[in-house]
């Protein structure tokens, strides 16, 4: 697939589509456009003073759109982390739900309690998680254990994390336990090369997370995380392996965090513009658009129409969410325990 991504004139002959239909390829592209648009919207709303905080996943569009295409809605479970806007949207979380999270409205899934991007939805099988890195990894393993114990074949858990998370003890403990029990789970590392301000070489002795798989007795594989189709292929094979009872895999796609860690961060304080620009040149969104056009899967006018459509959808979601009410002060006290309880105060 790297060939297709880097080629120009010959691309039409070499596009490896991994069995995806034209519609599915366009859906992946649309997801990437929507991610970019929703991502920008969070930062815009913050700069307009409308929301206190936003987190960006720009640069993760390809890996997330590709992974989402390999996820079986209604069967699989996703245990995401906070830079998974595209995965959430790709498996059925709507733009309105994203905006409700950004605006912290009452109708948000967690009622405006959590930071933006901390999505969960029981309905689509997306587990709730906190901001504590790696804390969700054992939860995903526990969910995979439940699937295995109930002998629910054809289901698997997809758990995602960045490179930063792989330094945590619970990350190791979880892979080890999943390997011992051959659980139906895929560990997907979205390696964006930065843990806020700490580069890879200060996080690990060698830069490849997937190489650690061998130590756990698991298959490990890396792929280009700027390539949605290479991602789809790797995630699909790993998920199929998990669903069929053959056990976990550790797979890693390398991408890049184009934006600062969050609206409260300024990456100019710790990395050069040259580095960021070098990565920008490989921006997966325009590159995938080019490939689809070169392979006649998309015509330029369609691409423009899609861009207009995701902008419209994002604007409508923004207006709708903004018009909705905040949670009320009394909502601070609900859903701590089941049923009535008497706070000690």
């Amino acid at each position, binding site marked *: 697939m790297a060939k297709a991504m880097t080629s120009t004139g010959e691309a039409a002959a070499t596009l490896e589509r991994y069995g995806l239909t034209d519609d599915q390829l366009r859906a992946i592209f649309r997801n990437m456009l929507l991610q970019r648009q929703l991502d920008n919207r969070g930062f815009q709303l913050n700069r307009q003073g409308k929301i206190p905080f936003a987190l960006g996943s720009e640069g993760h569009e390809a890996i997330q759109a590709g992974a989402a295409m390999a996820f079986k809605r209604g069967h699989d479970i996703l245990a995401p982390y906070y830079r998974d806007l595209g995965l959430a949207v790709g498996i059925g979380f709507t733009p309105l739900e994203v905006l409700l999270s950004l605006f912290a409205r009452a109708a948000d899934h967690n009622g405006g309690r959590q930071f933006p991007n901390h999505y969960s*939805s029981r309905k689509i099988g997306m587990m*709730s998680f906190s901001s504590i890195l790696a804390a969700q990894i054992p*939860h995903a*393993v*526990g*969910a*995979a254990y*439940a699937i295995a114990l109930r002998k629910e074949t054809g289901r698997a858990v997809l758990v995602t994390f960045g490179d930063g998370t792989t330094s945590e003890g619970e990350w190791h403990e979880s892979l080890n336990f999943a390997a011992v029990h051959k659980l139906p789970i895929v560990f997907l590392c979205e390696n964006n090369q930065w843990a806020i301000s700490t580069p890879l070489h200060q996080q690990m002795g060698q830069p490849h997370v997937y190489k650690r798989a061998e130590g756990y007795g698991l298959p490990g594989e890396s792929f280009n995380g700027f390539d949605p189709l290479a991602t789809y292929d790797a995630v699909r094979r790993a998920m199929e392996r998990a669903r069929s009872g053959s056990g976990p895999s550790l797979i890693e796609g390398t991408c890049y965090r184009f934006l600062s860690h969050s609206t409260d961060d300024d990456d100019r304080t710790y990395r050069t513009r040259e580095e960021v620009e070098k990565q920008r040149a490989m921006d997966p969104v325009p590159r995938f658009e080019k490939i689809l056009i070169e392979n006649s899967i998309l015509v330029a006018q369609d691409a423009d129409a899609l861009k207009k459509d995701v902008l419209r959808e994002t604007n409508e979601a923004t207006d709708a969410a903004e018009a909705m009410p905040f949670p009320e002060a009394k909502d601070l006290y609900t859903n701590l325990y*089941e049923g009535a309880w008497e706070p000690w105060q």
Partner: protein
Amino acid sequence: MAVASPSKVMTNVEAVRSTLYDALKRDDKAVILGEDVGNRGNVFLITKGFIEEFGPERIIDTPIAEASIVGIAVGMAMEGLRPIAEIQFADFIYPAFNQIVGEAAKTRYRSNGEYTCPMVIRTPYGGGVRGALSHSVSVEALFYHVPGLKIVVPSTPRDIKGLLNAAIEDPDPVLFLEHKRTYRLIKDDVPDEYFTIPIGKANITQEGTQLTVVSYGLYAHQSLEAARKLQDENLSVEVIDLRSVRPMDRNAILDSVRKTHKLLIIHEDNKFGGVGAEISAMVAEEALFELDAPIRRLCCPDVPAMGYALPLEEEYMISTDRMAEEMRAMVRF
């Protein structure tokens, strides 16, 4: 003539074992996970034979990794199982602190009820068994600050059965603390039938009029023994076994203090920031003018834990005689 319902005499450790056994029999969703719970049957033999009967899928010998023992149980609970996680000794619970405090306790709250965490974390705690610095600590004060958790500290076999059943049934995470000195020391009649005791309900183990003593765990037994001694001296002490420290039965404490007008809190955990601090603050806020004497807390010293050498352990722990002495002084105040 009423026929007594069938019952058996058992120790605290036997009560834990038989209650867990019944829970596994009753509910396929119940699983036990922890270090040495399967092949070995737990270091106190609580789960001996379980792996043969229920299989290694439900009695899970985990790697030595406390954070993920709890973390995996959280994930199991979020996806419909009823995990009973074991931390081999309470002293080993620290690596799991985030999973208990940051995750289990907050799952329902942070998802606004969309995900819940019905799980039990059992662990033996407490001293008086030559357990030294790392097999004897009390950990309740580290956790009772945390909204979203329930914390149970039963002292008798009957309470263990009723409260462990309640904990397993509970839709929210429960930290179930078993005082290991009481495991084989305390023996009593336990009804055969299934029953629960509500979490958050204290037990008045002796009624009295001149002083309220609040305790739990091993010291619930010693304080009761001390109070009985004082009866021979015509001193009347009311003894409350808290049984749960979160939620805490504030009404039982306040009602008693309004009757006796004096309060002594006895616990093995060290005094500073302990459970007794919260009780005394609550009574000071709610019933200060009912008091005829300053509130007193009789707690173990402010050192990390008891030492291994016998004199160090003895100096740390509170004797029944010391409890009686303190009660006498307070009644006479």
